[in-house]
């Protein structure tokens, strides 16, 4: 049968066949992804709605500027670009796995699925590091007329406006001594001693002088929703990556056990692939909404 001729003449909607030339499972997967797109869409759009309802929103390049092993170096967007590339590459390996499946090439499927799983796991690892870094990070903020050291959690956001010098000068007087010691340890003036200075032994007035107010970039509290949405949406995305990795592992095991070879087709790999690409697709938008704009 001449394939091209059929394509032009086929009456797709007459019944007795799929009008999309697609088996039901793949069709279902597509519509499931549509549905999931609305879940993510709703998250991102409500994030947009809240963001538009704020007078101030933190600059992502200020928030996401750390890199594992780079200490306090200011490297905006560096780490997230690594994460993005990991996900793009794992998407490519998935395409190759699906293609190998089309050719009934078991070894190819196993090989590329394996690399996809590695990519997924690496991405999850990166995300875990980033979350950990944000939550345990120490940032000096001016809150309720006092100075405080906080991380980025769902309840507090340390990325508000830079505090005015006059406010800091007042607040520093009201700050408890233990906090002053910690602030001094975070960034003390070089001339007040070396990094090993025992700040605890200094009297309050000395201690206040020892604090590097400029270097600490003391900010006010930022919009709390920033953290909520960041952790909520990247968490939900991470959950999708995680389940994608699980699915891929199952696919890998099934391939190795020749389940698909016996079935005569690797269509399950194709469906898993669709899911995996969708996860990548969502990341593209998460990347846009949280890191770029």
């Amino acid at each position: 049968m001449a394939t091209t001729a059929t394509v032009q003449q086929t009456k797709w909607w007459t019944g007795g066949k799929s009008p999309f030339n697609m088996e039901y499972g793949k069709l279902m997967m597509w519509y499931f992804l549509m549905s999931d797109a609305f879940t993510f869409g709703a998250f991102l759009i409500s994030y947009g709605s809240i963001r538009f309802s704020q007078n101030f929103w933190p600059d992502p390049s200020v928030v996401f500027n750390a890199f594992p092993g780079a200490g306090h170096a200011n490297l905006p967007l560096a780490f997230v670009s690594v994460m993005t590339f990991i996900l793009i590459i794992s998407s490519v390996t998935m395409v190759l796995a699906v293609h190998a499946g089309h050719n009934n090439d078991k070894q190819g499927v196993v090989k590329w699925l394996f690399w996809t799983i590695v990519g997924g796991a690496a991405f999850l690892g990166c995300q875990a590091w980033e979350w950990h870094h944000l939550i345990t990070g120490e940032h000096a903020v001016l809150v309720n007329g006092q100075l405080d050291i906080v991380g980025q959690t769902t309840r507090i956001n340390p990325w508000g406006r830079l505090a005015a010098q006059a406010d800091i000068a007042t607040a520093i007087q009201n700050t408890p001594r233990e906090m002053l010691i910690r602030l001094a340890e975070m960034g003390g003036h070089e001339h007040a001693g070396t990094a090993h200075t025992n700040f605890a032994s200094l009297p309050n007035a000395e201690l206040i002088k020892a604090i590097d107010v400029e270097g600490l970039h003391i900010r006010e509290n930022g919009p709390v929703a920033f953290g909520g949405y960041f952790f909520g949406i990247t968490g939900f995305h991470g959950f999708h990556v995680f389940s994608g990795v699980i699915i891929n592992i199952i696919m890998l095991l099934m391939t190795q056990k020749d389940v698909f070879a016996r079935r005569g087709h690797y269509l399950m790999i194709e469906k898993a692939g669709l899911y995996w690409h969708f996860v990548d697709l969502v990341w593209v938008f998460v990347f846009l909404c949280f890191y770029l704009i």
Partner: protein
Amino acid sequence: MSETTTVHIADAKHATTHHEEHGHHQQSFISKYIFSMDHKTIGKQFLITGIVWAVIGGLFSVIFRLQLGYPDTTFPILETFFGKWAKGGQIQPEFYYSLVTMHGTILVFFVLTAGLSGTFANILIPLQIGARDMASPFLNMLSYWFFFIAGIVMASSIFVQTGPASSGWTMYPPLSALRQAGDGQKIGTDLWLISMALFIISSLLGGLNYITTILNMRTKGMSMTRLPLPIWAMFFTAVLGVLSFPVLLSGAILLLFDRNLGTSFYLSDIVINGEILPNEGGSAILYQHLFWFLGHPEVYIILLPAMGMVSEILSVNSRKPIFGYMAMLGSLFAIAILAFLVWAHHMFVAGLNPFLGSVFVLLTLLIAVPSAIKVFNWLTTIWRGNIRFTPAALFAIGFVSLFISGGLTGIFLGNSTIDIHLHDTMFVVAHFHIVMGVASMFGMLAGVYHWFPKMYGRYLNNTLGYIHFWVTIVGAYLTFWPMHYQGLAGVPRRYLDKSGWVNFNQFGELDKFITVVSMIVFVAQFIFIINFFYSIYKGRKVRTANPWGANTLEWTTPINPGHGNWEGDIPEVHRWPYDYGKDGREFIPQTEPVGASESKH
């Protein structure tokens, strides 16, 4: 010739797989009735579960109607059953709110979503499009069991110490987001949210199945424009569900975070019981947006299946082709699209931007166009028809009547300026109960009366059906019609005792009247329930394969279709499903080839 052979082989292959999977029809009780993968059994499971929930939800409404009708009377029996929630035989405020919340949730989601489209999509889709079963029987089974678990979780919330959720079925924050707000906002709300999440999974699994089955599994010749209207309606219902329920899921997840993780998505500037909460920057209106992005399509998820079935039943029982088949399709499509564009008309006075509101007014009023098309088409379908007033036909006509009366008040409420006066009054209650609640219930009952012979191979008792119909339609109007007057006079909904207001006092007697009628209607439903369960076992047996003289494919199956629906080949379809009273013939089934001299429709 070669074509038919191929089909035959394919069918035979299909049949053998079924035999292999199910051990030559020697199924155990569990695989046949409990974890069944047969679409007909799953449909019946949805229906019976829906009936159980309808009784529970209806009972709740009777209890709070007692409070509304007789705010000063005590009913010691209530204390016997509900203990501290009805101390001294008086409904306590917290309990009252729990009752309305549960009534709304149960009826909207469990009865009119799962019980309606779950039942009839499952039973009708494969039978009417000519398929052996759903595309994925396994996911179909999961869909029911997720629904069942969602129900269990919801039911369990009734039995926790602090009681079920009580923030209204819309679960608006900040009330629903704060545990300190009251008993119903404690564990009950968490259970509500979890139950909803499970329900959304169930509806997603079902919806994906319905869509793919309708698209992929149609028999030969069953083009999309030869589909019976119920199938089109179920199709759009499923599309609405698949695209809008996930948005509710997002909203619910954010609400769970606000409740449990201290986030501020919906919360800002709140003082509760003298305590200043740290939450800052959230927007309660955001939740309403997310909720109604589902909530409005949900209204059509409830209504469309009823519309589809009513179209079919009216055409069959008028012995006339449906008037304007393509217009019916077009209006279903238009309604499905508009359903996604109008959600904020539920929020006109919630703090929505008034200019944005005016766009929503425009879009909302557009819905009147397809709705009117549908109404005129139903009326012209039965116009001069040779109507057989079976109970199903009566319920279908009742549906049309209710849809008209309820739809007209929708035009009032769709105008943001009039809504300033009418919002949150009994007028709203009257509107949505008539147009969405009772109308869809009528569609569902029409469907049950019409397809009961297909489901169980027996008839429902007609006399009981007639009594059921007349009591229900008269009662429904008597219950909800007076609420319009209350609402126009400003009587608010959700108040458990209005006797403190002089201007609402005048409605005391009317409230008593409504309460009495609603109790009668509730009791009348047991006529149906008894009829239903009695007839499953003892009803008059169906002797002919096509008792209603209908054209659609489900009546070409055996009286009690087995697994796989058709013995032998699936019939091929040659015409649309509405050739009634054509060329001197009463009806021409879809399976009959078009004759050479046949007139065009």
